[in-house]
């Protein structure tokens, strides 16, 4: 299935450099590998006694979170600080828009304060695209999760983790388990895995948690863990929002865990050296058993650490792309 790529032209400047990071879709394998390589180079910064590099010194980064988040916002904040940026955190749900100000007006005001980068989380799919394209084209926009659409930095930190533990992404058989329908993480993971040459990307879920035509995403579809996990190199468990357990999507937590929750028995279907990932926060006993979450195959905490390096990489690359674009314009 080929997709029109025109939507993603806004992410790159004339030289093909990243100037926004909105989605993995449409980005080349070389660019994704550049992100991973740059992140690799930042990992040691976190081990230093003074955890700072001056790449964004004098730049202003605003975390615009229209949805609550602790983990993602914190890692973006840490990443920006380690790049020496000035960071402002705005919890929008309790400020401007509640006074009736439109999103456009609010962003234009923030842009007018000479901000350089917005890290955006929003409940609406495509909100960062809208901001980058229509409202703030001169500010680097990093998507920190939009609706059901994309969570590209999460996907890239997952790719970094796979590369660290398996040596490569190319040729891997990856199984993604859980709520694919509502998951922005899964959509970005699937694109990143396919772009980086994964041998097969499988999704495992009941039909109620799958999009209408999941095969169009380029994945194989399984409703059964035994078949879906067979010979998998990587098992990615998705968080299952408990509010979705009720109603017509799923009958109960216990039935879901019985069929799709990852325990030692089900993990044994995968390759013996398979790694287990989870974007967090995890629901123990709902989508994953404690013995697996804390077990030897789990790399969940590595993912968290890698999140800072990936976000540093993306922020520094996007800022440099934005500066190059501005110089070309002038």
């Amino acid at each position, binding site marked *: 299935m080929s997709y029109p790529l025109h*939507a993603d032209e806004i992410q790159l400047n004339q030289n093909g450099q990243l100037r926004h990071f909105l989605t993995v*879709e449409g980005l080349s394998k070389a660019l994704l590998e550049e992100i991973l390589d740059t992140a690799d180079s930042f990992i040691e910064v976190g081990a230093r006694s003074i955890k700072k590099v001056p790449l964004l010194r004098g730049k202003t980064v605003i975390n615009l979170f229209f949805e609550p988040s602790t983990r993602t916002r914190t890692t973006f904040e840490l990443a920006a600080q380690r790049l020496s940026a000035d960071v402002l955190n705005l919890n929008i749900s309790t400020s401007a828009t509640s006074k009736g100000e*439109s999103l*456009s007006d609010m962003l234009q005001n923030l842009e007018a304060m000479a901000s350089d980068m917005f890290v955006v989380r929003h409940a*609406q799919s*495509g909100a960062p695209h*809208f901001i980058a394209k229509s409202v703030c084209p001169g500010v680097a926009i990093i998507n920190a999760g939009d*609706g059901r*659409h994309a969570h590209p930095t999460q996907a890239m930190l997952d790719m970094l983790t796979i590369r660290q533990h398996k040596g490569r992404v190319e040729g891997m058989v990856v199984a993604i388990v859980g709520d694919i329908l509502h998951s922005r993480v899964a959509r970005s993971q699937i694109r990143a895995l396919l772009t980086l040459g994964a041998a097969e990307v499988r999704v495992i879920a009941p039909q109620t948690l799958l999009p209408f035509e999941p095969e169009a995403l380029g994945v194989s579809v399984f409703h059964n863990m035994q078949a879906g996990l067979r010979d998998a190199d990587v098992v990615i468990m998705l968080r299952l929002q408990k509010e979705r357990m009720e109603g017509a999507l799923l009958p109960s937590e216990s039935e879901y865990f019985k069929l799709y929750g990852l325990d030692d028995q089900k993990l044994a279907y995968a390759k013996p050296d398979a790694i287990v990932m989870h974007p967090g926060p995890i629901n123990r006993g709902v989508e994953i058993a404690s013995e697996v979450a804390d077990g030897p195959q789990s790399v969940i905490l590595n993912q968290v650490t890698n999140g800072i390096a990936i976000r540093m990489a993306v922020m520094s690359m996007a800022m440099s792309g934005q500066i190059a674009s501005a110089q070309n314009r002038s």
Partner: protein
Amino acid sequence: MTKYRIENGVLRCPVAGQRQTNLYVDAGKIVAVGDSCDGFAEAVLVDARGKWIMPGIVDLSVSLREPGLKQKGSIESETYAAVKGGVTTVCCSPLSNPVNDSEAISHLIGEQARKAGYARVLPVGAMTSRGEGKQLSAYYALRSAGCIAVSHSRDCAIEPQVLRRCFQYARTHDLTVFMEPQETTLAQDGCVNEGVLSARLGLVGIPHLAETLMVSQSLLLAKETRVRLHLSQLSCAESVAMIRQAKANGVAVTADVTMHHLLLTENDVEPFDGRYHVLPPLRCESDREALIQAVSDGTLDAIVSQHAPHEQAAKQAPFGETEPGVSSIELLLPLLFRLVETTGLDLDTVLPLLTTKPAAIAGLTEYGLQAGAVADFVIVDPDKRWKVNASEMRSRGKNTLFSGVELPCSVEKTFVAGQNVYDCTL
């Protein structure tokens, strides 16, 4: 009233046929068609050599936004946009603020339209009070105030029992029922087609079933109540298949499709660009092909603009938060020529769907380019190509899907009731 002789134009009319001739207009009517007209002394001579004269377009689905939504458009601005697009009669949706569920609002719309003096406006009343899907509107009063039909909007739930009574009551008052078929719980929060696009972009999809379930229900109720049913703005292959079958079974049903659903699919959607937020959503290529086939074989009876002008702010938001709809009426006739140019359809097949057939659904008598008909007609240059520039549109809404697109025909003059209400040279 000014008397016109339209000279040497080529008539293109499903009623009067095709030939080069003169048209004689007096007192709001076409008094004669032919080489000469005894005793006719025109005040104004219009040279139409090289141009086509077509009957005025009848658009069954238009939101004029007045009363209450004048930031989006007014009856004056949108009826002027209509005549610029060759539309001489608009059937005005009840979705104003307040909803047109009363005699007073219907009168107000008629009065404002007469004052503006551009397109003829035929109001459509809300099927239920305040459009809420609960209580019958006053159909007798609506009809007395000039409403040609009652309609039910896709975004409001209505229970089968209420719908059945609406159909029964419409039949009582000889009113046509316009239905925008959508089962609201299946479409809840949706903004694009459920399929490849929704899977890829993570936007909430509207399944085909949301439309087809309501088409099926409406057809069954129409069969039982024997009301005249008009299904509006269809988007799915399965919908037209059901209508084809119902027509074969003798159900009194007609149906329309929007011009943009004949020209575009979900593959044309510029991701996250709110202009492409339309309801029903743009569907798959197989749906578009089925709709074109249904135009070709007569299953569909009309093509509509589904004109819905918006102020800029309504489309300046993340996709799911934008308001649905396109500003489209002033491109309707030129887009018909694009449809002919880009599909296997020919003009003689599609022209009745913008003229005689919707005129019949709207109850217009004395329609066409023959002597005795009301003088609603358009003069077009079929060879003049031009590019759509949204900022130059006369509609208050600039929310077009065709900005920058080259169109193969230009509307030169529009006449409504014998008055030259649009002239591209002025």
